[in-house]
């Protein structure tokens, strides 16, 4: 009969007290596991795992603002980039994939951000190893829209729903005339894509009010590239574009959906198109750094690795709260540990005779000390393992409900690496709380205890 069996027998002997102390540890660990899993999910939201691109290229300014606008779609970008620069990046040998991104409007209902992009956006991973799952058709006509799961749920929109856009923000009173039609709904991704309405970039440019003044557009593009701002040259270029694109011939046209729109039937000159940002996937890591460095020195743009500002954002907003939660749950486990201490210590006076008998049968002081310590460890580890199961069970059961309410994507079997330190931590805690009762057993006066 080994010491573990002896310790287990003693635990079973005090079944109710042992169960309650183990349960208190289990509940503490359950809370800890839940907090760790939530921590992991929130960290994912604020980490590289929430975006499948290496770099975000945007106008010079705050990198955090660029990330907030592009990744989290909190507010539209104030500055924009020339569309031509997106084309340049697309042709850059270092770039594997370039996706244009235009964010400036919100839905009239619900105030969800509207992003103009290209169909390729949906063909690529939105986060590492995460692909969009689309129910419906792809974007083919300018006024087609694909909506995120949260938009669909909150606005009760589905394929075929029509909606209008509000320029510049939900609080704005400028509602565009154009009506968009939902052609597809995205499955939940746990990212800002869930609360975004995607439209064709071409459609975005065809919205009244999105057209840029030609002269100003030429001037801004020239400024961006550091080219001549000679007014004659600008006027000449404008004249050529006007003729080429028939920009002086106002006419309405249909979109096959019976809606009237402003004159853009001949397409919009590249110079008049702007994008909020360009999402880049690079061919290799070093090229990301090279491009970032290049932009810092040259053009009026910046290339940001989103992980850095996102980590900063995480630390600013949720980092401390989560640290507090982790510390609080650690304290709960500590209190449970004190519970184990009290339970075992209180039992020691009743067990003096039992310990004395073991000693009389030949058990050494170290042996009885080890038995008590093992009891503490078994209670702590047993409670801890139960807590891990309960914690993951809770996540497993709650995941579908939370997903339905928040659009966070929760893997019910998600396991946090930090959980691995729970077991050694519990053993350490158990050793600590088992030490004093263990020493009581160690010091038991056998002769006296046998006659008590």
């Amino acid at each position: 009969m080994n010491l573990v069996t002896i310790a287990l027998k003693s635990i079973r002997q005090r079944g109710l007290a042992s169960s309650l102390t183990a349960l208190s540890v289990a509940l503490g660990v359950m809370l800890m596991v839940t907090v760790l899993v939530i921590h992991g999910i929130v960290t994912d939201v604020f980490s590289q795992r929430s975006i499948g691109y290496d770099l975000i290229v945007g106008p010079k300014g705050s990198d955090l603002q660029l990330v907030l606008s592009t990744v989290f779609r909190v507010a539209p970008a104030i500055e924009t980039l020339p569309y031509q620069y997106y084309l340049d990046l697309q042709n850059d040998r270092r770039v594997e994939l370039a996706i244009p991104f235009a964010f400036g409007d919100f839905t009239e209902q619900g105030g969800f951000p509207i992003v103009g992009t290209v169909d390729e956006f949906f063909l690529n991973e939105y986060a590492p190893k995460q692909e969009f799952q689309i129910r419906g058709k792809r974007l083919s006509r300018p006024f087609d829209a694909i909506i995120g799961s949260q938009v669909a749920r909150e606005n009760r929109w589905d394929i075929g729903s029509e909606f209008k856009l509000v320029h510049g923000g939900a609080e704005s009173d400028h509602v565009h005339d154009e009506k968009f039609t939902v052609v597809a709904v995205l499955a939940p991704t746990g990212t800002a894509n869930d609360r975004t309405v995607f439209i064709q970039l071409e459609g975005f440019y065809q919205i009244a009010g999105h057209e840029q003044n030609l002269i100003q557009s030429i001037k801004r593009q020239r400024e961006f590239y550091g080219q001549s701002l000679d007014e004659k040259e600008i006027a000449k270029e404008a004249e050529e574009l006007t003729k080429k694109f028939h920009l002086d011939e106002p006419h309405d046209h249909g979109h096959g959906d019976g809606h009237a729109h402003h004159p853009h039937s001949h397409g919009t000159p590249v110079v008049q198109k702007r994008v909020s940002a360009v999402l880049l996937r690079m061919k290799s890591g070093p090229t990301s750094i090279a491009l970032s460095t290049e932009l810092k020195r040259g053009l009026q743009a910046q290339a940001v690795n989103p992980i850095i500002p996102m980590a900063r954002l995480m630390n600013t907003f949720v980092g401390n709260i989560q640290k507090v939660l982790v510390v609080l749950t650690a304290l709960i486990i500590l209190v449970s540990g004190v519970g184990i201490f009290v339970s075992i210590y209180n039992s020691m006076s009743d067990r003096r005779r039992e310990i004395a008998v073991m000693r009389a049968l030949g058990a050494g002081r170290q042996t009885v000390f080890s038995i008590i310590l093992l009891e503490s460890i078994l209670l702590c580890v047993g409670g801890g393992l139960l807590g891990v199961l309960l914690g993951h069970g809770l996540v497993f059961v709650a995941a579908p409900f939370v997903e339905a309410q928040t659009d966070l994507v929760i893997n019910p079997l998600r396991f946090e690496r930090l959980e691995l330190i729970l077991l050694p931590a519990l053993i350490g805690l158990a050793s600590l709380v088992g030490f004093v009762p263990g020493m009581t057993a160690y010091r038991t006066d056998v002769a006296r205890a046998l006659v008590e």
Partner: protein
Amino acid sequence: MSLLLENVRKSYREPDGHMLPILDIPRFELASAEQVVLVGSSGGGKSTLLNVIAGISTPDSGSVTIDGYDITTMIEAARDRFRAQRIGYVFQTFNLLQAFSALENVLLGMSFSGRPVDRPHAVELLTRVGLGHRLSHRPSQLSVGEQQRVAVARALANRPTLLLADEPTANVDVANQETILRLIRDACRENKVSLLMVTHSADIASQFDRQVNLSEFNRVGAGA
């Protein structure tokens, strides 16, 4: 010779700081396989003597030699191991561990000896004391007589050379007293185990060839 005590003294410190002598034994011996009954007045130091022989208490001076080994020179851990391997102890109040079954109580005694646990031997011992059908019963599920029989089996589990029995029949009914006594004596005889039994019963004492009164060889005598 199985047991030899020489110049053994033992005293306890009283609450007021004075030392209270309990034992002062110039010489006491027990031959191999000999069965001796120890009688004496209550509080005369009989239990203290058994504890000193078992190595549970250490004497203030003198030597306690068992099978040629002076246990007073051993460090505590060695003494514990020696006790587990060579000395069986039957208590007046049985002292079975309530969390363990009859068989487990016997196995528990074996597990502290440092030798492999001999389960068949434990079963054999319990069968020998008439409890082969109650191996998995907890002490609370056994009668008083049965509990003491388990205690006897446990004391013999490690094949000791010396069995100490502290009033083993004091808490059992008359019907069981004879059974217990016969069990202990027969088992010791069969296994050539020396037996030192403490009793207050004149009837039981009279059954032994050698009866010793503690006061006869303990200089502290009745004053203890």
